């Protein structure tokens, strides 16, 4: 029952955004759509109107061999008890995507996490800054090309602000 409703939503969205869907199918029994990024915002709005009121998780994967990041939106509808997975790709050289924070407020923190660890910039996010690492940190550690050999050290500045240095003697 629940999955049927999820797949019904998938059918409805596929019809309405037919031109923007690059791939549709099922992922571990969850219906999923891969779409072009121009359609992301209107499709998310439509998905919310179809009952997907909860952005359960927003995550990103780095595919350096293909030259893009894939951002994955896991949606859930409490009323229908249905899942829906959306995927969008953005090029590694210019990792820009529209922010969905205006649709689901949960995206405020989730997009900051994806920005912090993967370096994807969400255009339209009201406060896009790092969430887990100190603000002056260099690089985005979940990228495949992040240099794990070069450690960064954190210390406390005179005003209590975070300082980051590559010099082991100047931090912890």
């Amino acid at each position, binding site marked *: 029952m629940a999955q049927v409703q999820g797949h019904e939503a998938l059918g409805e969205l596929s019809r309405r955004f037919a031109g923007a869907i690059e791939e549709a199918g099922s992922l571990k029994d969850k219906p999923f759509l891969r779409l072009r990024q121009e359609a992301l915002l209107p499709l998310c709005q439509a998905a919310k109107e179809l009952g997907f009121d909860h952005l359960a998780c927003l995550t990103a994967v780095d595919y350096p061999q293909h030259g893009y990041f894939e951002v994955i939106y896991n949606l859930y509808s409490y009323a229908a008890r249905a899942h829906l997975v959306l995927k969008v790709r953005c090029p590694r050289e210019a990792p820009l995507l529209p922010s969905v924070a205006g649709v689901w407020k949960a995206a405020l923190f989730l997009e900051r996490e994806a920005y912090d660890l993967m370096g994807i910039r969400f255009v339209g996010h009201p406060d896009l800054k790092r969430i*887990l*690492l*100190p603000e002056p940190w260099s690089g985005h*550690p979940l990228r495949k090309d*992040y240099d*794990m050999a070069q*450690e*960064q*050290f*954190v*210390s*406390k500045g005179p005003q*209590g602000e*975070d300082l980051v240095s590559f010099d082991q003697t100047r931090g*912890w």
Partner: protein
Amino acid sequence: MAPLGLAERAKDGRGGLLLMRLEGLLRWGRSNSLWPMTFGLACCALEMMATQASRFDMARFGSEVFRPSPRQADLMIVAGTVCKRMAPRIKTLYEQMADPKYVIAMGACAINGGPYQKSYSVVKGVDLLIPVDVYVPGCPPTPEALIAGLIKLQEKIRGEGARS
């Protein structure tokens, strides 16, 4: 300097008898009234909570008043992984505690980074930030181990165990 017994002090002619008694009393009082800070960083904190709760009952050893403010605490139990983002905050909390203050590094992460030894985001031991009195190994340590660490700290405060 090895601590002198009361009887030896009484005979050495320096007249420190009253001082020693007071100091001993003070140390004994301090050691049996440690106020830990309510503060957990990772899974070790659950074992710390279990240590404090009824089954293991840390209160038997005079250390039950977990304080929500560093200004009222004299024992910091670093229970868990010290992330680099957290490190300056831990330093600040330690600085806010009133003297005399003590630190227990609980678990592998707080001792040297533990399983996150090669992580980009974890401090390789809380003793890089603040002086540690007692290390309690384990991943996580059992409540018994933490109690053993607490008793070690009490011995240290009383001047009975290893000197700092």
